[in-house]
């Protein structure tokens, strides 16, 4: 397998420890992908190699200048972050599987049977419900096929919040605008891979072109199946859980080894905009019927008068 450390030939051009400038197309060195407008970029989050270090959470907060959410301990394993929010765009979920009744099991099956960790993020859906719902056009698809809220447009109507089937977007109480992961739009523009992916020490978070990542993920699943982890599956690739109900696929997708709900993900979300026409036309039909009834009633009154 791929055990040898591969250095990109361009890395040799930057041998000094402190650089006086940004490395052009740095992502080529750090993620092996050149970032070009017009292509689809996303994350493949392989939860089987997540060690729960939360470097992604920290890197995200640092790069995006996000304020702290809640300080303190939740008592829910090592998850003191809780959930994605307006100020938290990466969230590491911790699931301690063994040890019912507060007593830790003495024996564990090999390979992650007792611990599940997952770095959750905005899924940058192909048909993004938040974007479809946005009445101002503040939410838009970037040239990198990612979904971003334009902060100078958003008027805080909050309609993207219930639209999201993953509970990602939130309106900030601090500034009254909707916020979520931008997939580091500013970094992508500068040729840098997103902060979380760059900081991930185990490559649990991989950044790249979505089609490449999907192929990589399928090979990883096949590899895991061959190594005796038959429960590994992808969440958010075409036809998989998470990409149901007209969602097509998620640009940020996951490799999971338990039910989606264990990681606080829905099994079968659906695209909300598909309900616009049925709802609108049923309501109009009902009103049209009652209007006809009113016309008949009133013209009858007129005839009798």
């Amino acid at each position: 397998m791929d055990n040898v450390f591969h250095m990109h030939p361009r890395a040799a051009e930057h041998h000094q420890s402190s650089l006086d400038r940004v490395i052009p197309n740095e992502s080529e060195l750090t993620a092996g992908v050149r970032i070009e407008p017009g292509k689809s970029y996303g994350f493949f989050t392989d939860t089987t190699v997540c060690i729960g270090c939360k470097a992604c959470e920290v890197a995200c907060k640092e790069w995006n200048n996000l304020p702290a959410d809640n300080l303190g301990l939740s008592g829910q394993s090592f998850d003191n972050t809780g959930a994605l929010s307006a100020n938290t765009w990466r969230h590491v979920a911790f699931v301690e599987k063994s040890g019912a009744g507060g007593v830790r099991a003495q024996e564990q099956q090999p390979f992650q049977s007792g611990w599940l960790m997952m770095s959750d993020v905005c899924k940058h859906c192909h048909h993004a419900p938040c974007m479809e719902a946005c009445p101002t056009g503040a939410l838009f698809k970037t040239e990198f096929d990612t979904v971003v809220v334009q902060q100078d447009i958003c008027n805080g109507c909050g309609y993207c919040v219930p639209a999201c089937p993953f509970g990602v977007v939130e309106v900030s109480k601090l500034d009254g605008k909707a916020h979520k992961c931008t997939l580091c739009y500013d970094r992508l523009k500068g040729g840098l891979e997103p902060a979380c992916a760059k900081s991930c020490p185990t490559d649990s978070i991989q950044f790249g072109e979505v089609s490449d990542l999907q192929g990589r993920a399928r090979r990883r699943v096949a590899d895991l199946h061959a190594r005796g982890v038959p429960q590994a599956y992808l969440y958010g690739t075409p036809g998989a859980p998470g990409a149901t109900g007209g969602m097509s696929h998620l640009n940020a997708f996951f490799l999971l080894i338990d039910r989606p709900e264990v990681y606080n993900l829905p099994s079968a979300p659906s695209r909300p905009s598909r309900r616009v026409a049925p709802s609108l036309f049923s309501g109009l039909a009902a009103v049209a019927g009652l209007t006809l009834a009113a016309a008949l009633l009133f013209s009858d009154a007129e005839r009798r008068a």
Partner: protein
Amino acid sequence: MSVPYPVASRGPEDAPARPGSASERNMPAPGHDGSWDGPTYYGRPALKPAPFEAEVVGGYIFLAGLSGASALIATVADVTMGERAAGAVRRGRYTALLAPTIGSALLVYDLHTPERFFNMFRVAKATSPMSIGTWILVGFSGCAALTAAAQYASDRGAAPRTARAAARAASLPAAVLGAGLSTYTAALLAATSTPLWAAAPRALAVRFGASAVACGAAALWLGERDGGLARRLETLAAAALAVDLAGDAVSAIAYRRKGVAPAMAGPAGTLEKVVGTGLGAALPLALYAASRLAGRRPPALGTLAALAILVGGAAFRTSIIRAGATSAERPDVSFRFMQPDNLPD
């Protein structure tokens, strides 16, 4: 649909309570609710509730329905009955101003950055009922304002013939847009991932539309002196309430079948059942039926029925907003709802 993961698997067991966490808010522990026996993540919400204030948005939806239906019924009365319905037509045209004025103010108030309300006019999107509704409201406001202005002019005796013709000309598009105004709000709620709102898109829209017509008829009934027209407005309200109750029954079945019924078990659901359906639909229907059977109609009972319809209509909208938030906050409800068997075909 076959799923690639083991369905018998459990989530974090014996999750300790956290201040303000789902378990402290008296939510059922994972697996203890009949609707969902799978895992949750420490009972934490999987969805975020809409950051809407229930009274503000519910109030807007109510006023939009009332205004739209008033404009619609006034136009129908004007076209079919002409001068004989002049009083009801006038009241309908003035009632139609509620949505453009108070309703719009409520909408702007509910924005979290209200000074940017005008950004709603940047785009028009068919995938966003809020955008559709923005433009319906804009169009309706213009037509309803023109209608009301012409009505006012003719009331004051200024160029009566021209004013009446102008009022009628503007009232026709107002009626069409009024139908949209009274029902798009259901699409607004249904086209989200909030389980309760998304569970019965068609039935919810039928209920919103029918309830709006009932509210409009009740509002026009108040102050109607012509006995014949008042009786017909009652009949129209009764027909609309019957449609509303039928929609209620259909949506109740859908809520149970899709596992979102637990969201209606709380105070919001009780308000919806007692005030929204009981006071707002069942009681007025019973009053109308009783007065029809008795062959006489004490005016006080008619007033009671009309007021009950209006109060019930407002309570119905508000409680649906509230119960929707509950359904989004309860992972047992949202996970049960977002199972493959609930996917649209």
